[in-house]
């Protein structure tokens, strides 16, 4: 069962889709781990138990903090999203796609151990086996979350959508199967192309997939259009998680939640916020509707 309210993390990492100025201000505000954990504490104390966390450099610090305080966050569950594409972008620019993956995997000693363990130590072999490559990357990223309560592992949207365009079914089915088998959790997919992805996942044999996507009354970041989203949500079998429900402030909070939860009947919403008031109000709105 997915949580009704999932707390997002974009604000902690200076991400704001609407304004680069606001993004910089956020990056400055959340410079220290303490500033981040203060907000996590407010969210947790308001009753939020589920937290989405992208696997960027700050995620490690946050997870270390969670591990140091197990009793404080006893019921906390994580929805990690990986890989953090910006981390790879520079290495890809420098060394090419396969060079970057090699570098990331091979400079990571534990992933090297995994490589040894599975007995496929040939660099050439895993270069050409993208399923194996995907598994090694998942293992490497998952080390950040060791010993923590992970509920769903998400494939981040830049990667999901790039691969969706390629239409390689093995990867999507393989990812879902791998995280289930290895980590005992469900796979989730972040996307900017919900209708297309849901149809494709069904073709891949991923039944009732968990798909997280922008869903808002303004139609913002909903491709190809809001009508296709509404039709998909109403007619297709999948578990939607709505994000960007406020469309970066373009929709009033009450209308926003009302649309997502009442009009579309969506049961899970991810939202990020920085102030106590904003967190409490949004949580309450979702609780009342979902």
């Amino acid at each position: 069962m997915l949580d009704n309210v999932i707390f997002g993390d974009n604000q902690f990492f200076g991400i704001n889709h609407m304004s680069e100025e606001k993004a910089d201000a956020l990056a400055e505000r959340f410079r220290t781990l303490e500033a981040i954990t203060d907000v996590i504490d407010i969210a947790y104390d308001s009753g939020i138990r589920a937290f989405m966390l992208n696997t960027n450099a700050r995620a490690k610090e946050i997870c270390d903090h969670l591990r140091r305080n197990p009793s404080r966050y006893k019921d906390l569950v994580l929805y990690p999203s990986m890989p953090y594409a910006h981390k790879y972008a520079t290495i890809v620019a420098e060394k090419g796609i396969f060079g970057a993956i090699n570098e990331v995997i091979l400079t990571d000693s534990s992933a090297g151990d995994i490589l040894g363990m599975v007995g496929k130590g040939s660099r050439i072999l895993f270069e050409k086996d993208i399923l194996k490559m995907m598994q090694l990357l998942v293992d490497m990223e998952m080390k950040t979350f060791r010993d923590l309560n992970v509920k769903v592992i998400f494939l981040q949207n830049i990667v999901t959508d790039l691969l969706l365009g390629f239409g390689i079914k093995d990867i999507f089915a393989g990812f879902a199967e791998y995280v289930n088998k290895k980590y005992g959790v469900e796979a989730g997919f972040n996307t900017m192309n919900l209708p297309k992805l849901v149809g494709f996942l069904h073709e891949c044999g991923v039944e009732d997939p968990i798909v997280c996507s922008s869903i808002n009354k303004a139609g913002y970041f909903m491709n190809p259009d809001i009508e296709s989203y509404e039709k998909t949500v109403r007619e297709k079998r999948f578990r939607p998680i709505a994000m960007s429900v406020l469309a970066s402030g373009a929709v009033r909070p009450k209308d926003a939640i009302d649309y997502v939860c009442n009009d579309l009947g969506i049961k899970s919403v991810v939202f990020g916020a920085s102030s106590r008031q904003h967190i409490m109000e949004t949580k309450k709105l979702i609780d009342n509707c979902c």
Partner: protein
Amino acid sequence: MKVKLKAGFIGFGRMGLTHFSILNNHPQVDVCAICDQSSTMLDVLKKYLKIRVYSDYKTMLSSEKLDFVIVSTPTDSHAEIIKAAIDQNLHIFSEKPFSLSTEEGEGIVAYLDGKPLVNQVGYVNRFNEVFMEVKGLLQAGLIGEVKCFSSEMYGATVLKDAKSNWRSKKNMGGGCMYEMASHCIDLAVYLFGKPDRVAGSIMQSIYSSDVEDLVSSTLIYNNGYNGTIHVNWSDAAYRKPTNIVKIFGAKGKIVADKHAYKVYLREAAPAHDLFEGWNTRYITDFAESVRFYVRGNEFTRQLDSFVECIKQKKPETIANFAEALKTDMVMEEITLDAERSLTYDPVPAQKEGTRSSSLLRRFLK
């Protein structure tokens, strides 16, 4: 039944992958073949995509019956590949920059020789909603006669000396000028046209040993206005590449980035729903969804526009070769001007902390 356009890809690095993902599920496109020099890449593509792959583009062009090609190779190979594609009467989308010199770019445009082939260069800012909107506002005269502007671009692309890649090799089309400043200069050309001359140009290294990391220049127009460009791809303060355009006109000013723009007006403009003083418009206010999203609306919009031009048998007018050549010309003029500045003032060569002069001499050898 509609006949799909047959596409071939030449070069399959970061941009080739993105373009493929966008076009592979275009309802009117059938991607038939991919050419790349990486055997690993070709093996993976063959295994998972069941697509014909080539290591030599000439073999691909002669073996496949294509309608268009997407060229995403290092810039130094563009001229040769594009001319070979023109010989086969193919429509061409090429990554930016168009070519490495005005002479080379003019050669390609001349080679087209009036053939009705759709030609486009990947200057993706021309398909960004904010910049498209800003261009429309300028054309509508919202801020009156433009007096001056600045076009800036920053990113954390190069934070150490990277020697292994073509992007750090000047003769292959690497360096901040070709890689990043080209976008910033092209944005100025898109919004204001090609400047009549440039002055006070600087090309400076920050971390790179073989290429420049910073480019700045003044663009001068005979109609009386002027602009500056300032580009730094070694700025760790930016999480991702960021464009900032500031335009000052007689009736107000516009400040824009990829996500929003602000307008200051001395008098309200009811026709545009804008008040006197500051007005902010976020991309959420006017963004339109795309058929399939990968990395940004503008990436899909530029390719869909290209395909649409081919289907409609109409010339591409937003980012065609002739437009891209203007940007090439400005880049070349800035490079020459930077050299002249150094000849005029030899002092910077002696200063510690800047390697611009010796580096430039090496580029310009």
